[in-house]
């Protein structure tokens, strides 16, 4: 009897562990950034043509020190990036006077035509830059795309969102940046 009970206990423990693994959700969403609370690196990258009349040929993040920033990393091959793009654009239009939005095309070497199509498809009016060798994404500790970084006016990282970002998340985090 004791032997049967001990076998049942071991099997129940293994089933419990298996169910925990299945039900705990995607671990990717829980990936935090090691840079939370630290000053994020600045970067200067070339801009897509449609933004050059407003910003010049390249975009230097350091020029906007003192302003809250939302940096979104995307790629033209990335499905979830298409999902979040309209929400990013709509939120940018609502908060453009208070927060600077920057789109960074990364992990997408040489895909300029595809990047241009992506921008035009969603009529993205916030500046989008080209991180052709993915160096900036490494500097930010980006795992995959899309990832969105919410940066305080003093340049410190407030929050990082992994995966497609929703309007709710954008508004909550922007309000926190503006407080």
């Amino acid at each position, binding site marked *: 009897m004791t032997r049967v009970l001990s076998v049942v206990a071991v099997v129940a423990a293994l089933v419990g562990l298996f169910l925990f693994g299945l039900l705990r959700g995607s671990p990717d969403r829980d990936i935090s950034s090691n840079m939370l609370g630290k000053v994020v690196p600045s970067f200067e990258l070339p801009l897509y043509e449609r933004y050059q009349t407003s910003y010049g040929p390249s975009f230097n993040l350091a020029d906007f020190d003192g302003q809250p920033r939302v940096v979104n990393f995307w790629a033209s091959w990335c499905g979830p990036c298409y999902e979040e793009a309209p929400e990013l654009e709509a939120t940018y239009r609502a908060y453009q006077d208070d927060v600077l939005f920057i789109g960074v095309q990364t992990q997408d070497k040489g895909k300029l035509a595809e990047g241009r199509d992506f921008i035009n498809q969603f009529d993205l009016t916030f500046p989008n830059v080209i991180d052709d060798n993915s160096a900036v994404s*490494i500097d930010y500790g980006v795992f995959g795309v899309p990832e969105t970084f919410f940066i305080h006016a003093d340049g410190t990282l407030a929050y990082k969102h992994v995966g497609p970002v929703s309007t709710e998340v954008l508004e909550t985090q922007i309000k926190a940046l503006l407080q």
Partner: protein
Amino acid sequence: MKQEARSKEQEKVMVFNLPSSFLNLPSRALLTLLLLTTLSYALTQDLDREVFNISRQLRCPVCVAESVADSGAEVSVEMRNIVQAQLEEGKSEAEILAYFQARYGDWILLEPPKRGFHLLVWILPLAAGLIGLVVLGFLFKRWTRASRQPIEVDDADLRRVREALEQSR
């Protein structure tokens, strides 16, 4: 005799001394170029080996269980370029690993650091092995003790076994 000695001396000169034409300017330039190429190749090989050694300790951020050295992903290629650039700047292996750790955390290291919570990864297998050995030792002792005890058999059973053995012959 003297002539033989002189001819041997001449032979030595021919063997060990370079012909005078070899020392002219184009030849010297060629020799220098050859030496520099060999030296540069050797240095590149050394650097490549160092880049590989460091990259294989880093986890590719966009792959599944693959090191930066093994992966062909764009990010891994760029990470190897960063490792190479930092080595050329004279940074040490520890400094380069720290650069990636500052951005990606301990996750980026394929071998967890031997400190804090990560110590469990190193200690638990050892502890489990030791516990296993103790349990095995205990069981072995019990089995040998049980086998050493005499088996009590009554005469009737003993007789039946003997008869069965007799019949089987």
